[in-house]
């Protein structure tokens, strides 16, 4: 149910450009439904997932 990919931004320019990645880490949720720029504790990340309405 969960697909978690660590994407090497430099190895995958095309995907990085598609999302306009300018700093890392940058997490794209369900092809852009949500976005978490920077590294956050798990709890904050979960809050962002819930905020984006991914259920």
């Amino acid at each position, binding site marked *: 149910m*969960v697909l978690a990919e660590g994407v*090497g931004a430099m190895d995958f320019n095309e995907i990085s450009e598609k999302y306009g990645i300018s700093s890392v*880490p940058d997490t794209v949720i369900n092809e852009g439904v949500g976005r978490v720029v920077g590294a956050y504790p*798990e709890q904050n990340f979960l809050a962002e997932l819930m905020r984006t309405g991914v259920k």
Partner: protein
Amino acid sequence: MEKFLTDDLIAQVGQLFGKLTNPVQVLLFTSKDKQETCEPTQQLLEEVVELSDLLSLSVFDIGEHADLASLYKVQDKAPAIVIAAMESTLKFGKESNQVTDYGIRILGIPAGHEFATLINDLLLVSGRDSGLSPQTRKYIKGLAKPLHLEVFVTPT
């Protein structure tokens, strides 16, 4: 060929691998048009899995194994590393191995900081425990649709 892993690193990783508990199957998907990143990724993984009997590596060319690449959702994503669990079961007195995919991927060469991510992923999958909080587990269990996370990273 010159090794990627120095003796120091081998000693450090070897110590961490003392915590490995269950078998892990690493699948590497490569592509002929991405040789400059696929070849070093394969060499690095070969050197890593050599450090523990609980780790094994299978390498597939995306072009030649298109169905498998599609099953693991890694078409057009070479080099793609799938870090999966390997379960051995006895069936009719014969041992059979089953790969369980936890949806964990590393796309691109796991160099620099990403080497630590690779080692951590191997330990997590081997332990069969995500380490996530009860709230996060509850959320994931309740998911009605697939969740796709793409974490963009760089080696530095």
